[in-house]
């Protein structure tokens, strides 16, 4: 498994062999089951959490969750832990008939398992209340929470934020500001540029990996068809050559099976990690957007405060009775501004830490994926060589 590191019971990547006194949280996503009928059909998973952390009610809990519950968790974390690269989820939609194929279900289960485990082993995320909720509440509660968040029922605060964003965008346009204010931090610029380009490169690599999976399948199929055709040809020939043909046909079909198997392995252990890498980069892009928003908010507040200061001074000079009001407003704004600054700085700090963690994690993930890929290809090639080789003495024997 290419994410074994996260599955070690200690939950932290540093200590694989910890005494039971060490805090741990281990999660697994298992047992996909199809529920419901027709268009409403969906897959449910068993999520098993084992822990000795105080915050959890029981040392072991099993709950039933579906894909949209995972989305809920992801979105909550994204809201509450800005600056952290939230582990990415596998894709939402899929071609209808593929959605319930065994391969797809297994791939998704694997990805969801990795998703939760990454959260459980992240030094900040693992303490989140949302994670505890996700791992513990029963299905009805979960369903309520889920529809509350992702449905039409948005919290009033969210609506306010949406209005504010629109407002500021409009005022930007009105004031003739074309581009939103951006940080001009050279290192950060470099990082952003790196992330955006990385996505392109990775997407290409992933595309080729997927094609390679297909090629294995296709080569397997054509070898199988060839084998069958050769067998038939052998049947219309007599004596030695007929036998040789049928042996070749049989071997061909055998090799075909090896290829089909490797195709599946490639999909699960090479192409999927690459896809995961792409998703991770996209998650970083989302964080970058968050940071930009936070920066803008902070800037705007700073501007507003300046205006308020000027206004306040004016009022004080004119000894207006609006002074009190203005002072209160000013103080509130100042508090907001400090809050915004803190938010922004948290994001910056977190991002810096996350980048280091991300790079290290990806080196490991890719290393594992490459190892599995090379092992698989070597295994396949050796298997093919052995299969064909065993045919040679028989062919020699056929020579008249």
């Amino acid at each position: 498994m290419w994410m074994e590191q996260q599955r070690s019971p200690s939950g932290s990547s540093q200590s694989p062999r910890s005494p039971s006194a060490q805090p741990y949280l281990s999660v697994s996503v298992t047992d996909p089951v199809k529920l419901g009928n027709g268009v409403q059909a969906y897959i449910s998973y068993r999520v098993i959490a084992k822990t000795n952390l105080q915050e959890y009610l029981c040392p072991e809990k099993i709950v039933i969750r579906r894909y949209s519950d995972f989305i809920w968790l992801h979105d909550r974390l994204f809201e509450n832990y800005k600056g952290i690269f939230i582990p990415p989820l596998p894709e939402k939609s899929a071609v209808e008939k593929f959605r319930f194929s065994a391969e797809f279900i297994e791939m998704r289960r694997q990805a969801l398992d990795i998703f939760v485990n990454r959260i459980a082993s992240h030094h900040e995320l693992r303490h989140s209340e949302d994670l505890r909720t996700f791992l513990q509440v029963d299905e009805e509660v979960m369903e309520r929470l889920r529809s509350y968040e992702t449905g039409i029922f948005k919290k009033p605060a969210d609506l306010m934020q949406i209005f504010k964003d629109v407002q500021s965008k409009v005022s930007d346009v009105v004031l003739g500001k074309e581009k939103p204010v951006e940080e001009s931090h050279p290192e950060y610029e470099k990082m952003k540029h790196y992330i955006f380009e990385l996505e392109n490169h990775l997407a290409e690599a992933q595309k080729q990996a997927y094609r390679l999976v297909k090629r294995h399948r296709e080569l397997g199929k054509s070898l199988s068809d060839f084998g069958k055709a050769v067998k038939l040809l052998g049947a219309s020939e007599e004596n030695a050559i007929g036998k040789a043909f049928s042996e070749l046909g049989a071997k061909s079909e055998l090799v075909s099976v090896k290829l089909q198997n490797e195709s599946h392995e490639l999909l699960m252990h090479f192409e999927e990690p690459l896809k995961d890498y792409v998703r991770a980069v996209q998650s970083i892009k989302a964080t970058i957007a968050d940071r930009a928003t936070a920066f803008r908010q902070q800037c705007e507040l700073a501007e507003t405060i300046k205006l308020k200061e000027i206004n306040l001074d004016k009022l004080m000079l004119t000894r207006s009775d609006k002074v009190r009001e203005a002072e209160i407003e000013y103080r509130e704004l100042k508090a907001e501004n400090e809050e915004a600054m803190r938010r922004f700085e948290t994001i910056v700090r977190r991002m810096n830490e996350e980048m280091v963690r991300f790079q290290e994690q990806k080196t490991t993930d890719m290393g594992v994926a490459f190892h599995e890929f090379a092992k698989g290809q070597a295994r396949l090639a050796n298997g093919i060589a052995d299969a064909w080789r065993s045919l040679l003495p028989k062919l020699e024997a056929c020579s008249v």
Partner: protein
Amino acid sequence: MMGSENNQGFEEAHLYASKEEMESLVLGDPSKSYSNSDYRSAMSNSLSSSSSHHPLSPPLLPTPPPPPADSDPLLAPPPPYPRNPSSHDHSSYIEPPSYADVIFSPFDGDTSSDINGLDCPSPTSDSPISFSRSSSSNAEYIKITVSNPQKEQEVSNSIVPGGNTYVTYLVTTRTNIPEFGAPEFGVRRRFRDVVTLSDRLAESYRGFFIPPRPDKSVVESQVMQKQEFVEQRRVALEKYLRRLAAHPIIKKSDELRVFLQVQGKLPLPTSTDVASRMLDGAVKLPKQLLSESVVAPHEVVQPAKGGRDLLRLFKELKQSVANDWGGSRPPVVEEDKEFLEKKERMHDMEQQLSNASQQAESLVKAQQDMGETMGELGLAFIKLTKFENEEAVYNSQRSRAADMKNLATAAVKASRFYRELNLHTVKHLDTLHEYLGLMLAVHGAFTDRSSALLTVQTLLSELSSFKSRAEKLEAASSKIFGGDKSRIRKIEELRETIRVTEDAKNVAIREYERIKENNRTELERLDKERHADFLNMLKGFVVNQVGYAEKIANVWGKVAEETSTYARESS
């Protein structure tokens, strides 16, 4: 997914550059660019004679090898290719034991002296068939090359200036067969001459499996460039002539010799076109109808041809209809059960061959695609490696870049191996296509037999009808006292006709028997050669699969080792 905020137009343009970059990036080779390697080009490239450097062969080869790159099996094995000093990658090839060395000889163990493991099979255009058999036969050989297409003007006396242009090819022959009188010679021939040769051979060698000549294929020439068409035709002509030269009987034929050797205009009677033949026939028909048309004995050895022998055609047609629908059995019937069984078997084999041939094509395409995609994957990772190295801020990135480079290099190598393997596979499995093509020749030979039989049957029918007429006349005339001068004359004419027809019948029967015998020997020869060639094909195919699988396994085994630090206890 591909969206990016920054203006990436320029950069993206050379992000995914051609494979040339891949070559020079990874292995520092004086690279040749990979041609647009679709299946067709793989096929045609493998078929073309290698006077031009093969674009798909590994870049380890230096610039175009000298012209006798197609190894004549009976000459000394070709000298090993000079090592290109700048291709340092060669030394990084580990030579695994067993088949990895042997694979490079696509044919019999004869060329096992090529052990430098380097030599690429610049694909010879010797059909595998001629090689595998000539190596075991006597020392006589004949090697034909078709080259140097040139445009020439039709010398015409017409009013229209300029006239027709056509293409001629240089046909060079090297041989030690004494009948030719010279070891090496060349002539210029045009396609029309090949048609003539083919037609004359068909006449002279009825009952033999004569390799079918290349199509006139007018349609295709409109679709592709003139150059491509000429090249394809050149290849096809060469293949055809070599097949003729490989046939034990036909290689000694006068027709072939004359075609290969006589300078200037081809001294074989040309086949006139259909229209003028019909015209010819129309002129002769009245004469045939008015006189008691008989088939002259010497003409009987040829099948009825439209135009010349309209009447004969009609008669034989009538006969064949009578054979099919008539109540009585024809006087001579194809009785040879063994032959009928063989015919059935040939038919069945043709179907299986066709199927196998198709599947072989799909297999080759799938192998080609695998190699291509593996190469593209390698290229994508090369780019990633470069990118990470350039942008590296953390050591983890540099470490990852190093891992990627190993993977990419291996993928590129594996890709090359797949393509090489495919070149070999194409050549080996080509045997299937060859024998499928030969089925046409078999059909022709069987048709010769049935038309000869038809001629015999027709003559027998005629003979019997003449005889019964004669009997009737005699009966009638004997009733008249003193004889009937006109009737007697008629009877005598009839008797003469019967005599001629008897002769013709005898000749026809002899011809039929001869063709039957030809069929039989050819079938024997076909069976024997086919077994040998197919066995070679299978062996070659398997040996190559093994050899290349070993090489590929080796490449990936190394990467698995290099990345073994990432392996965990489980899985």
